[in-house]
Each structure stands twice: as structure tokens, then as C-alpha cells.
């Protein structure tokens, strides 16, 4: 199993450009999450999904949109990038039940710089 993968690993954008970050998981998990992590800080939840076709806002959703058209994929979009969105973005997934109910599995991250 590849676990949780993220594409791309690095990206540099100019202010106002748009892009989509892709997260894929092969563990058949129901729950998926997008976080951002700024230097010296913890992870802040942007959006999350509890199942295919559903999404919900997290703590810092402004400036981002998400889609969960397929169970294994969770896309994070930036319609008009701003320098304040420079960050490392992590995707995570979680099983809905079972002994690992509380365990979120994280991808390797995408480092995004907005100039």
C-alpha cells in the first residue's frame, strides 16, 4: 500500500494564480482532511470530508475549495493564490471504525510558495 500520497511535492505560484493539490489514499478510508502548517506552528484544519461527495469547513477555510468526487481522492483548490497561503499542506485520511479509529494517516506534504 502506498498509503496517502500528495501531488505535487513543491510548487511556486504568483499572486492571483490558481492551482489544485491532489491527495490520494488507497486504504479505503471514509474520512479525509486537508491541513496547513506554518513555520513553528501546529496543523490547522482547512477542510475535511466524511465521505464521497461530502465536504465541510475546518478552522481556516477562506481562500480554499475542496472536492471529494471519488472516495480515494480529495482535492484542494486555490482559486486566486495569496502570499498568506504560503505554507506546507498536509492531507490525511482516517478509518471510520476499528481499532485505529483515532489515527489519522498523513501524506508527505506539499510545500507551496506564493510570490
Amino acid at each position, binding site marked *: 500500500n502506498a498509503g*496517502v500520497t500528495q501531488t505535487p511535492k513543491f510548487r511556486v505560484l504568483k499572486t492571483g494564480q490558481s492551482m489544485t493539490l491532489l491527495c490520494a489514499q488507497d486504504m479505503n478510508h471514509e474520512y479525509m482532511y486537508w491541513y496547513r502548517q506554518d513555520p513553528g*506552528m501546529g496543523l490547522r484544519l482547512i477542510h475535511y470530508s466524511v465521505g464521497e461527495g461530502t465536504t465541510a469547513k475546518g478552522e481556516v477555510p477562506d481562500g480554499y475549495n475542496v472536492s471529494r468526487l471519488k472516495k480515494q481522492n480529495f482535492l484542494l483548490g486555490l482559486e486566486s493564490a495569496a502570499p498568506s497561503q504560503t505554507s506546507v499542506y498536509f492531507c*490525511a485520511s482516517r478509518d471510520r471504525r476499528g481499532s485505529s479509529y483515532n489515527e*489519522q494517516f*498523513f501524506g*508527505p*506534504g506539499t510545500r507551496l510558495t506564493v510570490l
Partner: protein
Amino acid sequence: GESVGLHLPTLSVQEGDNSIINCAYSNSASDYFIWYKQESGKGPQFIIDIRSNMDKRQGQRVTVLLNKTVKHLSLQIAATQPGDSAVYFCAEIPPLNTDKLIFGTGTRLQVFP
């Protein structure tokens, strides 16, 4: 609002010693508390969790203690090894939305020989 925080931003320990990483939380109604480890350049990795009806839980070389009276959580690592060097985050599952995690700001553990 809800918040999870840490007392020490950086902890330096000698290899072989025990490490104690602390965390304060504010929501006394949270049901689960979780510790994650993040190595440089990687995503966080689950270490151990504890339910609010427990005081202590042990894993492999790690012990989590929960003191609900003072809303304090700690992670103890026995016989700390160089591979334990990382940033450690505590997180809580808030009572009003158990689909989410709220992360603290993290403590960096540095292990020196």
C-alpha cells in the same frame, strides 16, 4: 474557544534518558487525546491516544498520562534514542465534532549523545 497548547517549545535530552513532553488543553469535555510525532520533512505520525476516562496508557517505550483535574497531558519516552528527535504534537478530539482533530503548537525534542 477550544485550544490545545504546549509548555515547552524545545526539549533537549541525552540519549538514554527519559523524556517528558507536556501539553495543556482547555476543553474539559474532549473525549480523546492523541500524540503525534513529526520528523523533519515528513507528515505527522500517530503515536498513542488516550480516552478521557483513563489516567494512563502505555505503548512501546511511551506512556501517556492524563490529569483531568488540571487539564494536563504528558508523553513520556523511555530510554530516548536519536530516532526520537522530532516535533511532538498533542491533539484533542473536540466534543461537539468528533470528526476533527485540534492540534497544539508542538514541542521539538532534541536528543544528543
